[in-house]
């Protein structure tokens, strides 16, 4: 799945199939989960396995997908970003704040041309990411705590901007990308696909991508190899915030409104997508390929549960259990791999 593994795969093949499969457990398990879930829902509901519904699933996971691109970088470095949903929210609100709203919207906002609004929104999320980066690298606050604080800060900025109101208008470009479609394919799906592909290319084929894997694999060794570990960690925090911001702008256009707490479920969904896909929580293993599988597992699960007749409160519990199972596999896969490499 992740191409960083292909090289070691070549080495593994010579050692026989069983150890190879064992070392690839983290890539295989999510895939089997996806096949199992798809098969289950296809049998349980005739409306599930249709082309229309595939389109639904793709659209439903797009915003999560955009946010998860950046989060994949962060988790590959063995860090975490809990502020993604809040930053998505504040960026979506910001882009609406800088857009002319209808007269009935009672927000003292600052209307600007569309391009300026988008630019300012991106600058905002990048700046928040930079604060995360500086807190993590210069001050040395663990990312878990640093981004927890940022989660509140971004939520606070959101609240200050909209003051309990709802804004509806966003720049034309964002409206198109968030809710328009071309040739029957929603733009939001195309944007998510491009972002995921770019993330994959950066991680696999660029020097920076290699550094991300190496810093995640063994931070101390990366430092002794003369890598600027702090710069790399800082960069992934900014990338994560900017991806979240883009996801937030698209989301606002997709939902048709910008308001407080709009993205709260996206924090868990994005983390779940990355981890369910098999990217190691200990860093250094996995990639965008894994995240894509994780997104589909989550998308199929969320969508499929709507197609079968099930208590909507039970749905939440089921999602929690699936996430737990994925975490178990994630940690177990790491152990198997270490054994194979012993």
């Amino acid at each position, binding site marked *: 799945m992740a191409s960083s593994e292909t*090289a070691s795969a070549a080495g593994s093949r010579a050692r026989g199939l069983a150890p190879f499969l064992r070392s690839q457990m983290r890539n295989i398990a999510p895939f089997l989960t996806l096949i199992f879930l798809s098969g289950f829902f296809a049998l349980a509901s005739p409306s599930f396995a249709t082309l229309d519904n595939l389109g639904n699933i793709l659209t439903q996971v797009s915003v999560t997908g955009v946010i998860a691109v950046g989060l994949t970088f962060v988790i590959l470095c063995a860090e975490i970003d809990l502020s993604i949903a809040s930053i998505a929210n504040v960026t979506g609100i910001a882009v609406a704040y800088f857009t002319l709203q209808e007269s009935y919207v009672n927000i003292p906002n600052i209307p600007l041309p569309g391009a300026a609004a988008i630019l300012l929104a991106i600058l905002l999320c990048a700046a928040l990411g930079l604060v995360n980066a500086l807190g993590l690298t210069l001050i040395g606050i663990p990312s878990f705590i640093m981004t927890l604080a940022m989660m509140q800060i971004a939520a606070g900025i959101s609240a200050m901007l909209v003051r309990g109101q709802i804004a509806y208008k966003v720049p034309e470009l964002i409206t198109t990308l968030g809710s328009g479609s071309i040739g029957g394919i929603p733009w939001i799906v195309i944007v998510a696909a491009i972002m995921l592909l770019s993330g994959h290319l950066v991680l696999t084929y660029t020097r920076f991508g290699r550094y991300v894997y*190496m810093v995640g694999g*063994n931070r101390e060794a990366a430092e002794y190899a*003369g*890598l*600027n570990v702090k710069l790399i960690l800082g960069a992934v925090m900014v990338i994560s915030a900017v991806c979240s911001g883009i996801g937030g702008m698209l989301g606002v256009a997709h939902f048709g409104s910008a308001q407080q707490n709009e993205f709260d479920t996206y924090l868990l969904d994005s983390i779940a997508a990355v981890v369910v896909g098999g990217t190691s929580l200990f860093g250094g293993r996995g990639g965008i390929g894994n995240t894509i599988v994780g997104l589909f597992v989550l998308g199929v699960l969320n969508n499929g549960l709507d197609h079968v007749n099930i208590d909507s409160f039970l749905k939440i519990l089921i999602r929690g259990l699936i996430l737990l199972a994925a975490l178990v596999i994630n940690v177990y896969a790491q152990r198997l791999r270490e054994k194979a490499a012993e």
Partner: protein
Amino acid sequence: MPEVRTPILELQGITKSFGGVEALRGVDFALFPGEIHGLVGENGAGKSTLMKIIAGVHTEFSGRFLIDGTEAHFRSARDAHTAGIAMVHQELSVAPDLTVAENVFLGNQPTNALGLVQWRRMAREAGEQLSRFGIDVDPMSRLGDLPIGLQQLIEIARVLFSGARIVILDEPTSALSPPEVERLFGTLRRLREEGTAIVFISHFIEDILRVSDTVTVFRNGRKVAETASAATSKGALIEAMIGRGGEALEHSYSDDLMLPQPADGSVVLKVDQLSLARSLKDVSFEARAGEVLGIYGFMGCGQQELSRILFGKLKPDSGTLAVEGKPKTFASTAAARRAGVALVPESRRAMLFHQEPVYKNISISILDRISSLLLKPAQERDIAKRQVEQLQIRPPVVGLDLGMLSGGNQQKVALAKWLTYPPKLLVLCEPTRGMDVGAKNDVINIIRDLRAKGLAIIVLSTEPETVLSLADRILVLKRGAVVREFKNEPVSKDRLLEAA
């Protein structure tokens, strides 16, 4: 009729392979109570693998495993522990933030009826145990504040006094000063009298011959010899280890060695009045191109801190660094690398990526030289292949995960990553620690080649042999200060030890 002794532990026909590479081939091994059993062999010969099988670390292998004559199968290190087997691993594994007493009683603190830890009793008993071992420290002090050698002794003491019937020591003496080694040996002999079975792995063959009753020699995953220590000699053991006449390889350095005239190469590094908290005091020296500067001192003399300062990982409290005349204050290790400084630290775990293939380990420090934005994997592999060939890294497969290589080969990979684009200054910490004779010689030759190419090289070691085998000029560090410089004069192991 002589009494037939029954082994406490018996292994028959043990074979263990790591993904097709056989690390052990049909090894028989027996250990008797009240015996100190020495193990010698080159790196990758299979000693550590066998010990990890005994300690329950490796659980998959073929062959019979008998304890007290009955077959046993451990599923984890915990099972081995329950069966009375304890192991001190090569790498220090202590909890530096806990007190000495807590470390001694790690996992079995004395508790009262309510399950609360009895601190006073724990401190008292820890103190008693450690003083039996000749260690006089406050049991309530933080372990991490003590010198590394002392930490290692405390870890060994914990294992020795844990009540285990079988104790395995993997390279226990490498971080210890001579008096500490003496104390350790005294304790081992006492435990032997009490009936404990002890396995002692070391590269210091003199140590093995002094303390053990039986010696077993490994070569290429096979047991090639087992004799009483009294009936063999260092030369014979080395010959069995490497399979050829080995005396010429292992220099004893007991005689005087003449250091050459100081080199007249340009000054690459100038260190002036470097001080760091309790570790370093006003350290000043120069390193010149085409010269190997050896820095010798006991564990905890400040070498480690010095090497970290040179590579930008630690910041000195005062003092200056200059590379080729330009003053530098390194903000990060990346800045040091850009200035032409390279460091190979003493711990292999700290400097290599065990889950990544060999070629990525070799290319990591030079990626910015061979690619700006996009990676060039083919070129990386070519460079790695050349280094693997030149340094005779085994197995010569650049796509293999680094973790599959033996320790000595990993050490060569750590060197290899700096060789394609040689730095101006190469700082090596314990470059040959824990290596067998053959690999040691390979590394020594690599370093001499680099010196001939005009690099300035600094070798820091706590082993006099390492410094003597490499250095053109030797500084002796003692408690953070330079106390003696040897240059253009005779030097020997004795003279070094005396100065330190």
